[in-house]
């Protein structure tokens, strides 16, 4: 069986910078740099603080297969792809996708979506560089549960230890220490 992958998004950590969207549009926009040519979109909601990257999940049973002309398929790597030659621009897949991850290219008027950049997704790379460890991860499909279990366990561990107040003083102490660190760093010339 071939190895399948998907992009795992940490919705709580996204800062809404859209570097992923911009990099995608620059490299994969078909010559047009625009949110309309990016295969990942980030919706921002400043009043609630929610930043929401929307990207193809490469579903096991993709709703976008609703395509009436058979332009949508799953390739041998398990990547859901569009055959743009077949696409008639009817927007059925756009409407069917529960993640809003498909859109119509403003110039070609064909549906476009993420194809995982052949296994080296640039959105993942730029996000990791700018905001280490990154909020978009290239994850093996069968590891989804494990990957998210670790993420949520880490968060729960933090809140549980806080609630238990076992290490509460250590945590607030660390924050106080951070201010002292800044002063010490300033002393060494590391100043904003």
């Amino acid at each position, binding site marked *: 069986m071939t190895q399948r992958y998907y992009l795992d998004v940490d919705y709580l950590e996204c800062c809404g*910078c859209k*570097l992923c969207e*911009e990099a995608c*549009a620059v490299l994969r926009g078909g010559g047009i*740099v625009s949110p309309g040519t990016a295969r990942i979109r980030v919706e921002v909601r400043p009043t609630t603080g929610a930043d929401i990257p929307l990207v193809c999940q490469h579903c096991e049973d993709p709703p976008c297969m609703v395509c009436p002309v058979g332009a949508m398929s799953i390739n041998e790597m398990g990547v859901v792809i569009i055959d743009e030659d077949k696409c008639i621009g009817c927007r059925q897949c756009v409407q069917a996708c529960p993640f809003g991850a498909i859109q119509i290219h403003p110039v070609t008027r064909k549906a476009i979506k993420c194809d995982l950049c052949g296994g080296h997704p640039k959105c993942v790379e*730029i996000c990791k560089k700018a905001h280490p460890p990154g909020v978009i991860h290239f994850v093996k499909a069968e590891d989804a549960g494990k990957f998210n279990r670790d993420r949520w366990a880490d968060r729960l561990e933090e809140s549980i230890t806080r609630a238990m107040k076992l290490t509460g003083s250590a945590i607030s102490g660390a924050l106080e220490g951070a201010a002292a660190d*800044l002063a010490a760093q300033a002393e060494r010339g590391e100043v904003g």
Partner: protein
Amino acid sequence: MTDEWYGWAGTILRVDLTKGTIKKVPLDKDLAYNYVGGRGFNSKILFDEVKPGTDPFGPDNLLIFSTGPCTGTSIPNNGRYTVSTLSWVTGGLGDANSGGYFGQAMKYAGYDAIVVKGVSKKPVYLFIEDDTVELRDASHLWGKDVWETTEILMRDHSNKGMSVAAIGQAGENVVAAAAIMNDYSRAAAKAGVGAIMGSKKLKAISAYGESGIRVYDPEEVYKSTIEYIELIAETDKWWFETFSKYGTPMFVDQYQHLGALPTYNWKEGSFEHADKLGITPLYEKYVKKKRGCGGCMYHCSPWFRIDEGPFKGWVGEGVEYEAMTGFGSKLGCDNLEVALVGGSLCDMYGLDYISAAEVMGWAWECYNEGILTKEDTDGLDLSWGNDSVIHEVLRRLANREGKLGELLALGSRKASERIGGKAKYFSMTIKGQQMGSMDPRVLKAWGFGYGVSTRGGDHLRTHLVCEYMFTPEEMEKYVGDARASDRFTITEAKADLVRWTENVRFLNDALETCKYINRGSPRSYVEFPYRWLTATTGKSYTYEGLQTIADRVLTIERAFNVVRGMGRKDDYLPDRYYDETLSTGTGKGQRVSRELYDKLLDRYYEIRGWDKEGKPKRSHLEKVGLKYVADELEKLGCLGKEAS
């Protein structure tokens, strides 16, 4: 999108509010290639089209919004734009720069710049969605704050992805501290640009676009982006990690340490309760996540929510060092929650944190010195440390309500001229512009940069963290004098440092990248700007070529001010910095020497190609490709003397 352009979108919108007309004009090649974008576009258009004698509130004043050739690409921190106008606050050049997504949105819609002239009879907003550009009635928005306005426009147009730049009550009421806000909490803050927008009855611009732009070399655009992030992460790891983690509130702790934290309206440079305003309480209780502007390689904007107490339920974003010091140490207050909510109120009313807090600092000091009384303040007690009135004062300021609101709306220079006497001494402005919050007495080059800034007192016109970041060896290498690395010392080389970093900062404003990207290795601002420009536009730029463009724009900005009677006399700091030494903090005993400051001015004018009065000389103007400006200055009797 115009097919012949790379980097630039290729079209400028010309909006006439008096006539209610909109024209789409092809971008001029000379403007694009020789002024790059953003502030470069704006300053040239202002000089060319806004003639001496123009009334800032009249129909002939322009309000120009410009993006740069990198806006909307993946170049780090590309989500910025500059707004420029003839400022009512300075009487000369006024410009302001903001992040968020607005610059990208107007660029994606297909426009490099929006040039607004005229005055509308009734409130309007400019609706932009790709090719559709319309002036629409804004009667239902007038009187609403920025956040309400934004939400109504998103709802009316069923588009939560649109970006809205709007004024709040402060802009409508033509308040000197009025900003133009975009994406709720991003401010084009300086120079009272919001007041000019209000005087034109332009409530908002909403922008959304998918037409997009083209870049000449996509692979190189992406590659140079990644290399840049790696460069900063490697050569300035501390900054990359710490600034991403804390954002500008960390400067409370740091400037306190440097003795540069403005306290009691700049009387002192350190505050005894700074720890209550710093990152420890902020991150322990209030900040829930960090956000970034479009294209941000950090994410310096703390998003906060207050969960209990009198301010329960308040949220806000982009809470910033300037709010902590502005509504904190400058007023002698130590209530972080009041500062946080004060910042959000500014965002809603459309007020510049800095200018609002500064004019309040002035009022607080006048009140404590007995110059203003309760009669002047409509009964409010402006004693140092009284944080209970701060939000009420902001409300009155934004609405020009009562005697106090009317007075503060003028900004501290004009307000102090009205009051007279010692009140003028307490007005901490340069060219009428309220300053950013680092004490010039302990950062001498930075202070000098405030003085000569073409838009008035300002910390963003120069990249003077070099003053304490560079080692003596680096200082020797870049400005020829190792002593310049001592922040307390004034050496003539600091004039060279100011000139060089003014050029560095101009390139941020022209490409439209955030100023916080210039860190670590000077490679970051020597090598990358021309590389990015070449990759996005396909035009061949060099470091030297960009220096000439920077010299050109700095000089045309100077010329814009000179023809309005400004000169050497306007390049000095407020008297307090020369006359009063700091008595607390690590800068204890520091002040600025007038004599040495004068020497700095002489040196600075000389290397800028201006005469001793700060007027540009013909020889320099011609050298930087501004013969027509020389002719204009000569006609007006404002040309610099060659011999001097």
